[in-house]
């Protein structure tokens, strides 16, 4: 490695290591004894947990890939009634926190929900327990997370060369065959990237899983910590999730192989038009996904809010909203800045596989449950304090715990995966030729980045910022533990009310979150309209 590369790379190494701090702290728990508790878990929960986690990941993964890709293909390649607004509307479920959606689904489809009551009373069918078995929770996760695949696949389909599709058509291939043989293989990296985010988020989920009383790996993590007061075993179990995520990323990279797509042209021509009943059938399909994943839950939330609004609303909501907005926007800006730096194209980086692996590793915090990540961070600070005290300084704990700085750090570590995924996807589309010409022309690296790379990466930066912003808005466990006094967010309000069974009241802050999320999406969409 030449000297220049050493100097640029060392900064990236330091940045990646900093982002990965909580992962290191959590993994260091293996240095501590776990002992009897492992034996107990091995004899009781573990087999069951591993099986149900695998079934869940498999079902959700298959579901989001198929649904996300089909929806994206339809809105990009086919003209059908309602396509214009549905293309945008299909993003909206992003704004609803997964646990809120799960909550509404249970309220409607569980034994005591109206759907089942109607089924028993009007149709005379017998009721059933939707929380037993796997399919109901898998469907819930699919409806919550399909937008990740939809979003990435849609961006990829838009960049597919229209003449390849036209060639397929001229050779007489049916639209379905074109989809399978041309579009899907070309979009495979994008679908895999969306799938990866989904699987990591499913692994780390605790909210939906507890509402369904379904057991996954996180069940054991929380049991180790909450029931057996063993933060060590909790951290050991959690670091296994990071390991799983690491393998998932590895397989995604393998699946992608050497494929890199240097096309940045966006096509607005739709090769197919669905008229008549076929068009309406497509509309019905896409519309029903929108209904189930967004319209129906929102309607329920609105119904709950209306009656209770006057009682629940107070001046406090201004503060809940301000805290949410400030945290959301600053976390998004910070995370995406770091992600951009990590993703900037550079010949130095592309030469070093170790560096690339390290960067990937630093994004794995996404697979850690939020509370484990937050406690890991507190222990990280504790270690620094111990060093400081050893040298006669004072502890930093009381200064950093409950500071915005530590909370933002937690967000950056936790959501780096989604920010990096997006910035890296657009960075990979930048041809190495730019760097070569810049050097020939004697342009500084700074000018190259500022005038060439950043404008070219803008779509990825914007998409990453939006995803992080929406995720931070919905984030609960890390915010709950690390926020400063008086910084309650909307998500915290939703949790505190619904934990006490006050779901109608919880609908008020939930609705505010959805509106805020939708506004964010709209704003980012406008900022980035040149690219869409």
């Amino acid at each position, binding site marked *: 490695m030449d000297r220049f590369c050493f100097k640029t790379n060392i900064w990236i190494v330091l940045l990646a290591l900093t982002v990965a701090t909580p992962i290191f702290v959590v993994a260091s728990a293996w240095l501590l004894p776990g002992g009897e508790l492992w034996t107990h878990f091995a004899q009781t929960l573990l087999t069951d947990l591993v099986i149900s986690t695998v079934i869940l990941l498999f079902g959700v993964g298959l579901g989001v890939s198929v649904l996300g890709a089909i929806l994206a293909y339809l809105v990009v390649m086919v003209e059908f009634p309602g396509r214009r607004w549905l293309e945008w509307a299909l993003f909206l479920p992003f704004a609803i926190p997964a646990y809120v959606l799960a909550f509404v689904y249970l309220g409607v489809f569980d034994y005591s929900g109206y759907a089942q009551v109607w089924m028993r009373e009007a149709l005379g069918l017998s009721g059933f327990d939707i929380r037993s078995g796997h399919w109901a929770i898998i469907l819930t996760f699919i409806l919550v997370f399909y937008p990740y695949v939809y979003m990435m696949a849609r961006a990829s389909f838009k960049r597919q060369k229209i003449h390849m599709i036209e060639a397929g058509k001229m050779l007489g291939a049916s639209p379905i065959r074109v989809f399978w043989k041309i579009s899907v293989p070309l979009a495979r990296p994008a679908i895999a990237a969306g799938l990866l985010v989904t699987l990591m988020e499913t692994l780390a989920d605790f909210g939906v899983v*507890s509402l369904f009383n379904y057991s996954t790996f996180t069940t054991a993590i929380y049991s180790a910590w909450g029931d057996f007061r063993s933060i060590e075993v909790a951290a050991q179990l959690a670091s296994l999730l990071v390991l799983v995520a690491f393998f998932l990323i590895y397989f995604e990279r393998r699946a992608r192989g050497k494929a890199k797509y240097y096309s940045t042209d966006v096509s607005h021509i739709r090769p197919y038009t669905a008229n008549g009943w076929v068009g309406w059938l497509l509309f019905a399909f896409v519309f029903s996904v929108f209904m189930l994943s967004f319209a129906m839950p929102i309607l329920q939330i609105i119904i709950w809010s209306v009656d209770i609004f006057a009682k629940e609303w107070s001046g406090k909501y201004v503060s809940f909203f301000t805290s949410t907005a400030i945290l959301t926007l600053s976390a998004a800006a910070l995370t995406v800045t770091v992600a951009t730096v990590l993703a900037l194209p550079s010949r130095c980086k592309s030469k070093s596989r170790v560096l690339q692996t390290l960067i990937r590793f630093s994004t794995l915090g996404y697979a850690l449950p939020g509370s484990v990540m937050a406690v890991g961070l507190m222990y990280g600070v504790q270690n620094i304090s111990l060093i400081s005290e050893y040298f006669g300084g004072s502890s930093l704990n009381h200064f950093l715990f409950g500071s915005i700085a530590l909370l933002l750090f937690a967000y950056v570590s936790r959501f780096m995966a989604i920010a990096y995924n997006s910035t890296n996807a657009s960075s990979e589309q930048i041809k190495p030729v730019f760097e070569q010409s810049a050097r020939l022309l004697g342009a500084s690296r700074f000018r190259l980045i500022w005038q060439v790379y*950043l404008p070219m990466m803008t779509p990825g930066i914007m998409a990453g910022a939006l995803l992080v912003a929406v995720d931070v808005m919905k984030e609960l466990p890390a915010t709950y533990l690390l926020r400063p006094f008086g910084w309650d967010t909307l998500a915290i309000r939703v949790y505190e009310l619904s934990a006490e069974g006050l779901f109608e009241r919880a609908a008020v802050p939930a609705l505010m979150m959805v509106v805020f999320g939708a506004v964010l999406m709209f704003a980012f969409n406008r900022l980035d309209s040149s690219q869409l």
Partner: protein
Amino acid sequence: MLTKRIIVSILALATLVVGSITLIQAAADDVVTVYSSRKEHLIQPLFEQFTKDTGIEVNYLTGKGGDLIERMKLEGNNTPADMFMTVDAGDLWYAGTQDVFRSVLTDTLLNNIPSHLRDPEGLWMGLSVRARTIVYSTERVDPFELSTYADLADDKWQGRLCLRTSKKIYTKSLVASIVHNEGEEGAEAIVSGWVNNLAATPNAKDSHVMNAILAGQCDVGLVNTYYFGRLIEETPGAPLSLFWANQETSGVHVNVSGAGVTKHASNAEGAIQLLEWLSSAKAQAIYGSLNKEYPANQSVASDEVVSAWGAFKQDDMNLAIAGILQADAVALMQRIGYK
């Protein structure tokens, strides 16, 4: 170019916010700082009243019990918390073992809080009592069929029982009390009987248990009474009723929400004053009317709605025992497969 300018301004905003961390709230002398796992909407009215009565401000931070204990441990003698408040005896007991509390045994507290609802060494005080008992469908169950928690393990309840998840602290404390009263083997038999009798996967919430009974999925369940209180307030005349369990034997299992003064409190005097105030008649009445819980202070009458359910005999097992036995109870439920 526009996007670039926007990115720059967002970055500037972020820097500003990060910079503002130095503006940490300066704690004035007469402020009591509380960490609480009792939810904001249930403590804020109490603190407001306390400030009105005494002029002492209360600064609070809500969170999960285990998280907050961990945070206090790491903050050590610099912790801002003067008081830790939580909703389960197990958490109070655990915080006690982690050296978070100091012993506070003032005459006022000893008079106001009965001995089984507080730590023997005065590390924490129970402040409101939460009774967990049987709820049944008045349409499908004759109350004469009901008797004890153990009886719900009987075959006659096959397919008729709904329970809340074993992951919830209230279930854990109840099973811990059964381990205490019936021994490990007895408890194992009872809990396996329950699991055999389940009509559905255990529910995430007590309110879901009651909804399932109302919808006919099952006939009996176990709930904390204040959830029943809220349901009846919203839907008066719902065909549900409470039954006081174990009246001939150990009494109804009770848990507490409670608090203690932290070991490293910088305003211990204010925190003790707050703790005493919370045990007073005035505050105890607010506990009852806010959340339909039972007062810990026996000289205070229950809320009107609550007294309508009648008097009952409480299990007088010291609640520290529920904490000690909690891990055993969880291990037992996990062995049996109570999800």
